[in-house]
């Protein structure tokens, strides 16, 4: 094989190497953007859930004590970042206020309570979805960043390693059907 052949092979290998690095970098970039978007979406849905909860507290869906506790927790949730413990506290307050499965099923049969509870269920389901989609994106990104090519070439740059969101968003039993 002459030197032109060797150069040609080297050139092809170099192009392939560059292409695979470019492909890995673009995938990583897309995943980082997906994680950012997922945090924004989670923030939006948690804000909505807190607004609905605050509204329900003022509508008199619950007894005055429960309403006060929920309203306070909802205000804190509205001001908290999406990873804050305030959302878990709102979840706990709402679970206590809405009661057990029997209570929720009874309330769903009362004409002026049913739409309010449905509104809460709907907002809560979206918050659950948003957190699951975020954590899935985080898992994929971490997996991608653990690849040798990504680590050796520092393809992630200075973007911090994404972390999953571990707030407690377990809904009251019987509110959001599984």
């Amino acid at each position: 094989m002459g030197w032109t052949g060797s150069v040609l092979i080297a050139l092809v290998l170099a192009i392939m190497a560059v292409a695979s690095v470019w492909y890995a970098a673009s995938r990583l970039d897309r995943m980082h953007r997906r994680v950012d978007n997922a945090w924004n979406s989670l923030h939006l849905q948690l804000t909505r859930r807190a607004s609905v909860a605050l509204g329900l507290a003022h509508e008199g869906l619950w007894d005055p004590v429960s309403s006060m506790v929920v309203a306070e927790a909802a205000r804190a949730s509205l001001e908290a970042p999406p990873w804050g413990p305030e959302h878990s506290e709102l979840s706990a307050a709402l679970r206590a206020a809405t009661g057990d499965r029997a209570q929720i099923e009874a309330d769903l049969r009362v004409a002026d309570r049913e739409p309010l509870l449905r509104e809460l269920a709907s907002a809560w389901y979206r918050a659950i979805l948003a957190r699951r989609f975020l954590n899935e994106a985080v898992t994929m990104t971490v997996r991608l960043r653990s690849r040798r090519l990504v680590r050796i070439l520092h393809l992630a740059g200075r973007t911090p390693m994404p972390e999953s969101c571990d707030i407690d968003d377990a809904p009251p039993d019987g509110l959001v059907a599984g």
Partner: protein
Amino acid sequence: MRIGLVCPYSFDVPGGVQFHIRDLAGELIDRGHEVSVLAPAEDLARLPAHVVAAGGSVPIHYNGSVARLSFGPLAARRTRRWLAEGAFDLLHVHEPVAPSLSMLAMLTASGPLVATFHSAQTKSRAMRVASPLIRGAMEKIVGAISVSEDARRTVMDHLGVDSVIIPNGVHVDVFAQAAADPRWRATAERPVVAFLGRLDEPRKGLKVALAALPRVRAAYPGVRLVVAGAGDAADELGQLGPHRAAVELAGPISDAEKAGLFKGCSVYIAPQLGGESFGIVLVEAMAAGAPVAASDMAAFRRVLDDGRLGRLFRVGDAEDLAAAIVATMGESAATGRQVEAASLAVRRYDWSTVTERILAVYETVSGR
């Protein structure tokens, strides 16, 4: 919202995924969304206005049956054009790992992407072949949906992707309020056992149903086995001998006829041998108030709540199927309780609930 739906399988032939997409598009349009469906199709005259045909399809063995899929440069070009012209707020592809339009759309798409996994049997060999490219495409799925727990586990095992479960939808009230079709209405002397599914697709289990027939006839000499579905089963039917007289071929039936059959039958049987991830027909039969007996496989066991909502028999076991049919028709009090519980349980599969959940995914994914 402007929503693009991609169907991998040809709209020219009936199928669970096609029906799901057709009905979902209808529900979304009813709620005021703009919807366009991209699907393989050649018979353009029968397509609704919102379905865009991506051209012809090729029969491919996939997931234990023959699927009609579109691929190749023409399909790729049409997919790119549909995406460009659609300018969708959200793209929803179905069965994304099938080598099809869904995958073509995923490779091209840049906006928010939702994907629904229908199958519980993913071809991992095909996935390993194209692995790096497919992995890149999978990372574009912001909201992954599985139609059942079984489908979710398959996706988790093969692709390492977690998904939320939203079942397939059924128009529960249409089935609940249907009138029994006089052609197939059961009487005390002539009970009706209903079977639905392609006759020439072994995994639908027609063979098991036919093998169970002699035992059922011993207990109920007037029993009629009504077999609805396309395909040819002359060989199997020829081997039945004197029992052939009890089998009635209804051919392919419409949705309305299906509801009428369920409404009047004594029992609907689902003797599938495998490859089922959900069991939509089972839910439809339950919605119509038909007693049901189904193969004891994970997907059906879940739909029947471990036998609380209908009887389960060992997969592929004709003797056990015959016993289940005889028990369903003989033990009327127990069967009545199952039917009553089933009519409540199927509400979670109603399109009103299912559409609300899918829209929740759309809104979460698109950040609305």
